[in-house]
Structures are given as C-alpha cells and as structure tokens.
C-alpha cells in the first residue's frame, strides 16, 4: 500500500489588508505557525509546494521559489501552482509516490495593493470573453442566480424565501467569523443589511453577498503516515484529494445552474475515500458569493438540485450553528467562509483545510463543532475561476 499523507501541522495569518507586509512576510508568518504546530524545523522540510493565483501580476513577483529559498535559507525542491488545493494535491501525490516524507504546502496572495485594477485582472484571467463583453466578477454569480431561478421555476413566495436564504448564508458566515481570530470581518450583520445592499445596487446580489478581496497566507505541513505518527498523535488523514475541470467561459457551458466540475470532483473524492456522502458532516465550501455556498450544497449532493435554499431557509430561521438537511446536521464554513474569513485566492484553500484540520483535532476553540456523534470526516471544496476547476478534499480524523 502506498504511503498515506497526513496533516501534521497548520498555520495561517489573519486575512484582510496587510499594507505593511511584503508577501514573503505573510508566508513566513503562516509557515512559522504551522511548523510550531507540527514541532518541526525548516531543515526537516524535504520539499515545498506553494500557490498563488497572480502575485506575478499584483505584486510583480515572478519565480517565487527564489524569494522563498532566500527567506527560508532552503534549497529543497519547490514548485508553484495557482491554488492552494492544487499545491496540496500535488504534495499528497508526492507523499503517495514515496518521494518525500515531509512537505510544506503554502499559499499566499496579496490583492489589496492592486485594489484599483483587481477586478479587471480577475475577469481577464478568469473569463476573457465575458470581460471583453462587459462582464464583471459579480455578474457571473448574478447570471447563475437568474439561471437558477428560471430553471427551477422559482416565483412569488418561494423567490422571496430563496433571496432571504441567500442573505442568511452571509449572516451565518459573519456569525461564525466572530469566533475566528484570523477572520477579515469579525462583526455581525443582519438579513436586512444584505437585502438593502442588493436593493441599493439594484442587482440580484449585493455587497454582502460577495467575498472580499484579501491579503493573507496559509500553510500546512503534510507527512507520510509513518513519519506523521512520530510527529503527532493526532494526524489528520487526507483520505481523498480529487479535482475536475470545466470550460473557462461560463456562458459556453451546457449547465448554467451549477458547477459540473464540483459534481465530478466530489464523486471521485467519495470513491477514493471509500465513504458515503453523509459520513461528512463538516464542510468548508467556496462561497465567493452566497449563491456559490448554496449551489455547492447541491453540487456536492447534500441537497437536491433546485432545493438547497429550502433547507437553508428553514435552518436559518432559528440558527443553531449548522444546516439541518433531512434531519441531519451539516456544519458549513465554520471559519466564516470566504465571505467573512476572507479570500486571498492562493491562500484561501489553506484556510479551509486549516479549519477542517483544527475541527477534526478538536482544537477549534470557541468554533469547535459538536455533532450528535463523533465528527470523523470533513470536506473542503475550492474552485478556481468561476467553476473552471474544482478541488474536493476529504479529511479524516486521527483514529
């Protein structure tokens, strides 16, 4: 049997605006916390798999390996990918191949420096045809919502409930972030605020429906099971790390009401992990917008297509800290999600994995979730672009 990858440490920075910090300072901070968590020194690292979406563009930093080598005084192999999940998946593959025993996976992004141009960059890189036609990062989400409403024939009272359910997602995520010291927004908001922002924008989604742009870094240290068990008595297993892809252009896809890449990645991940869907009770989804959180519940299979809003609406009327779906509890975005925790692209997946890792080890502090029984499995979904690539990781507790 090939070596199994386990997570032995994780660390991150606060997400938000870090004018004063160079990108390398942010990744240093995250790495130091992760190494402390794992009880490792830099000389123990055999390789680094790192990610940033577009430091090349935002901070004019190319050949990131070079500055990290200088910073860490390491000469180990390093490689860069576009998302934390890609780096994470590559590192897991390397462990499974028996190539390395201890790897640093890191992610970093510094977006706020380029505040004035960032939406052009995001659009042009993510979906150039839409950009040329006048699309914005927000408009794809809004068009998907329009498509969803039409496809499922949602009108009248139901439409109102759908709109409130989406607002509740934002409110819930802000609530979760109150207990997350690293979160970008640690404040409560109300459903009325979310709705009012949409009214004043005159659009289907408003300010409070969208994740912010952020600076930040995250790091996890993964090891082979054999080495990992020596480092910690609470390793978190990476049971599956799967991904799938879809067209760059949203409009060209056959299905405009969801992400086929997430559906495929989830199928593969469940097969690899050898567990059933509802074995997962803890989930970090990629809520670039409130709509994306709702759609993810459907794409992952927790809700039927066209119905996630009902479960969300019912769960959030008197929110108990989880969604209740067909009598089962699902803890979603306990760190506040991208909405409130923040979304520094290359680091976001790291924060998601960090959260599930901490929860599974019982180290999430005030945020620690309590299921009816033991929570053994957690899922992470990270997207690249507007559903162009989807990664699903399934992590399992240390037993």
């Amino acid at each position, binding site marked *: 049997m090939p070596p199994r990858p386990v997570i032995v440490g994780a660390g991150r920075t606060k997400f938000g605006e870090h004018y004063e910090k160079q990108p390398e300072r942010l990744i240093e901070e995250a790495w130091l916390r992760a190494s402390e968590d794992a009880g490792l020194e830099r000389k123990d690292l055999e390789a680094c798999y790192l990610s940033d979406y577009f430091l090349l563009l935002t901070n004019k930093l190319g050949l990131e390996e070079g500055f990290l080598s200088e910073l860490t005084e390491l000469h180990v192999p390093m490689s860069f990918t576009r998302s934390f999940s890609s780096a994470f998946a590559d590192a897991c593959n390397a462990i499974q191949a028996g190539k390395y025993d201890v790897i640093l996976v890191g992610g970093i992004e510094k977006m706020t420096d380029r505040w*004035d*141009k960032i*939406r*052009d960059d995001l*659009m042009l890189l993510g*979906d*150039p*045809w*839409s*950009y*040329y*036609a*006048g*699309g*914005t990062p*927000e*408009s794809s989400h*809004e*068009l998907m919502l*329009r*498509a969803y409403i*039409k496809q499922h024939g949602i009108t009248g009272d139901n439409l109102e409930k759908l709109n409130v359910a989406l607002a509740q997602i934002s409110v819930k995520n802000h609530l979760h972030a109150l207990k997350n010291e690293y979160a970008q927004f640690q404040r409560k908001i109300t459903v009325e605020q979310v709705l009012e922002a949409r009214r004043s*924008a*005159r*659009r*289907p989604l408003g300010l409070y429906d969208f994740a912010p742009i952020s600076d930040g870094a995250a790091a996890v240290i993964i090891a082979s099971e054999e080495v990992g068990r020596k480092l910690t008595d609470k390793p978190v297993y990476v049971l599956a790390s799967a991904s799938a892809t879809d067209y760059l*252009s*949203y*409009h*060209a896809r056959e299905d*405009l009401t969801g992400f086929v890449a997430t559906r495929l990645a989830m199928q593969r991940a469940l097969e690899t992990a050898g567990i059933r869907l509802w074995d997962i009770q803890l989930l970090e989804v990629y809520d670039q917008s409130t709509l994306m959180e709702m759609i993810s519940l459907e794409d992952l299979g927790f809700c039927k297509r066209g119905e996630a809003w009902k479960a969300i609406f019912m769960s959030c009327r008197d929110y108990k800290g989880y969604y209740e779906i067909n009598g089962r509890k699902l803890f979603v975005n306990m760190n506040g999600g991208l909405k409130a925790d923040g979304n520094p692209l290359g680091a976001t997946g790291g924060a998601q994995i960090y959260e599930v890792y901490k929860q599974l080890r019982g180290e999430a502090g005030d945020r620690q979730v309590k299921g009816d029984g033991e929570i053994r499995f957690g899922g992470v979904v990270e997207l690249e672009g507007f559903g162009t690539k989807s990664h699903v990781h399934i992590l399992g507790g240390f037993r």
Partner: protein
Amino acid sequence: MSSEPVERRVSYMGDRLRGRRCQICGKEYFEIRDYCGNCGRKSFGKMENIDFFYEKGRLELCTLVNEPTNKFVKFGNYIYGVVSFHNGKIKVPGRLTDRIIGDKEAVDFSALEGREVVPRFRRRYSVGRSEIIPTISLAFTFADEYYPHQEYRVVAPKKEYDKPGIVGYGVYTSRFRIRENNMERAVPFIDEDAITAAVEAGKLALIHSGVDSMLIGKIYVGSESNPYAVKPIASKVAQVLRLGEEDEDVQCVDAVDTEFACKAATSMFKDAAALVSHPKFSIPYAMVIGADNSQAAPRDCPGGELDLFVGFGGCAFIFGKNDVVAEIEGWCSCTSDTPDFWRRDGEPYPMHGGRYTGDPAYFKHVRKAARKLMEQLNLKPGDINYFVAHQPNAYFPVRIAKELGFSEEQYLPSLQVAKFGNTYSGSSPIGLAAVLDIAKPDERILMVSYGSGAGSDAYSFITTSQIIEKRGCQKISVKYLAENPFLEYVDYQTYRRLKAGL
C-alpha cells in the same frame, strides 16, 4: 495592450460573430476550431464555418452592471448577460447597447430575458488615445426596437444595364437625438464612431442590394472623423463585412479611405462607377461609404458655432451594372483652394475660416458644379424631379435650390438636416437616399455635394423600374430612422458625453 496577440484574436472572431460547426455531430462552437470536442480527430477537416453576424439571438439571462471593470466605466450602467444563437447551441456573453440607464432606475430582468436581440458592431471599451481601438459584435440591441433584425439574402442578378449606377444603399444613424432650435440631430451612443457607422451603413447596403459581399472589388470610405490619423476605416469595413473573396484571414478587396471634408465619399461615386464599367477589369461591384461622427468644439470655444449643427450617421452605396436602381447619367466636379474650414492634424475639432464660409465657398462651388452639369446634359430645372444638396444647416440648401430655380417639391424631399444634423460626409448621400426611398422609376435626381477646402461633385441619376421592387428589401429607410418610435432624446451634457465617446 492593444497590440497584444490576444487583442487581435478577439477582434478577428468578435468583430463578426462566427464559429465552426462539426459536420459529423452538429456541435457548434463560438470559436474557430479545427476539430470537434465530441468527435475528436475524425472531425478534423470536417468543421464548417458558421457565421451569426446577420442572425437573431435571444437574451437568455441578464443582470445590471453598475460597478463595471475599469475599461467599461464610461458606459455608466448597462445590461449584461448571456445571448444564445441557434436554439441555444451557441451561447455568448453580451452587453446591451443603445440604452441609457439612470442611476436610480430599477431594471426588471425577467422582462428583458427571453427577448430576441441583434448583434451590433461597436467599440469594445475605453482605451488610451494612443492605442488601437478595440471593437466587437458582442453588443446587442433588441430585435423589435430601433434596429430591426434583417436577413441578408444574396440575390442572383436579373438584368444588366448599359450604364453603371446604384445597385443598393444603406443609411445608418443612431437611436439618440438632441432637439434644439427646431432641429433634431442624431447623437451617437458612447460606443459608436465613424467606423461603426460605416460598418452599419455598409451592412444595410448589402442587405438592400442582395449583392454577394464577395463580389465587391473595392471599398472607399470617406470621413473627416476617422478616430485614427493613420489607419483606414475601409480595412475594418472590408474585414467585418467580408468584402471580396476571403482567403484565410485576408479579404481580396481594395480598401481605401478618402478625405475631402464633406465630399470625401461623393467624390468616389464616379471612380466606383468607372471601375465597375471598365471592360478589361472584372470588378462587378464597388462600395462607397460616407460616415461621420461630425465633430464640433464645445459651444464656448472657438469653432463652437458648429456645435448646434453636427450630427452622426453614415450612408453606403453599392455601384455596379446589374440590377441598378438609379443609373448615373453624368457628373461634373469643381475645385478651388479655399480656406473656409479645416482641422489641423492632432486637433480634435475643426475651425471655420470666418467670411470664407458661405458665398465664397459653399454657394460658389455648388452653383458651379450644378450649372455645369446641367449645361453638359442640356437640362433645365423642370427636367429634374429631385434636387439634393449638401446640408450643413437648413438654410444653405434651400437658398441654393431656389437660386438654381428649383421648387419645394424638388428640394424638400432631400432635406434631412433638421432630422439628423449635418452628417458631414454622409450629408448629401443621406439626402440622396431619402429621395431614392420615394422616387418612382424613370425620375431624374440632381445631387450636388460640397466639401470645404473646397469643391463640389454634381451627379445626375435616373431611376430604373427596379427601384420599386428593391424597396421591399430594406426596412431601415431614412423615414424609418427619422420617425422611429424608439428614439431617445438627450440633454446637452449627455450629448457631449456620448459624442466624445469611449
């Protein structure tokens, strides 16, 4: 940025919406693909070109963009969404153009979704003044509004004439107007300019004529508001309208821009006619377009007096010897070096040369050209059914018409300046088109253009019987443009903003 390969690629496919269809499974792509994703290698060489430039699409989904990306800021608020063609086989992103949406205006998306739209050729977004102007046809307007959807049907010619003449024509002006001093003037939308107007006019002329665009051997575009000092409008028109035979990325057509103030286009009528008549050259058709986003300085600046008269529009004529609607009977041109009006290179607005405007310029040259042609053809005012003059304002053409002995019945039908403003190179051509819209067979039209600097071209046309049958091929007549219920009137500030463009 604009010289980057990606920009060029977008212009190639996006200026004229086209793609490929797999002949095995029928899958369509908004993309020039050499093989189909479904069928793989076996489809190589079996992908046919498809083109939806003249087609109708459907707005499937839409939302409001009121916080656009940087390059779209000048658009203000706009509707953006997904447009489908061929029953959803192809879906493209699109912006609705020709709509001014107020900062407080609520938009009901469900009332817009599901409606049919027509692709329009427009500027893509703002760029710096030194950059290439990006254009695209992923801009749409509703098919049941100002600009109706029209099919482009190529018709086999029925009759060859002895003399060359006008085979088809098209007039384009925008949806927006400013109303001042008993005049209505066409105002371009913010993504329009002389280039987009020329393309639109040419497109409408192709639709009206039924001429195969591949058979057009030469395209002349006359304008005095080309946004480029160096780079022709005609090349864009040729590429977007696929004039001449297409060979890989190249149109086998001669394309050239001409300049002589407001007579830049009319000057080329005779050249086009001569070219299609030459017995040794096999050029069946030539196209001449006059198009302008007529420029004027703001009212409080030198040259600002023009700001009360300038319009926007274009007019295209296809010349040939088959299925002619109006034969050229004769022509006469005259020129003198007169400093009545000019624009120095690099200056945004033209200037008037004080006392040289009027008598020493317009009247002298229009009178000379008209009289000389009438003498040559031995014509009296009574032999002429319609008189068309260049129309810088409502006063000049009336005064010269009266002086030459024409009555209201002869000159009023061509008088369009009070509906569209002075469209510079498009001015007398639009007057001619207005007459062709209503003329009966075997009527004589005398047209005299005027270009500052200065000169005039006089032409005598005689209509044929085919003028009636071809009229049914064009919904967008001059009257349709002038009396359209979807016109939108704007205030002075909006007019200046739209005219300045992206």
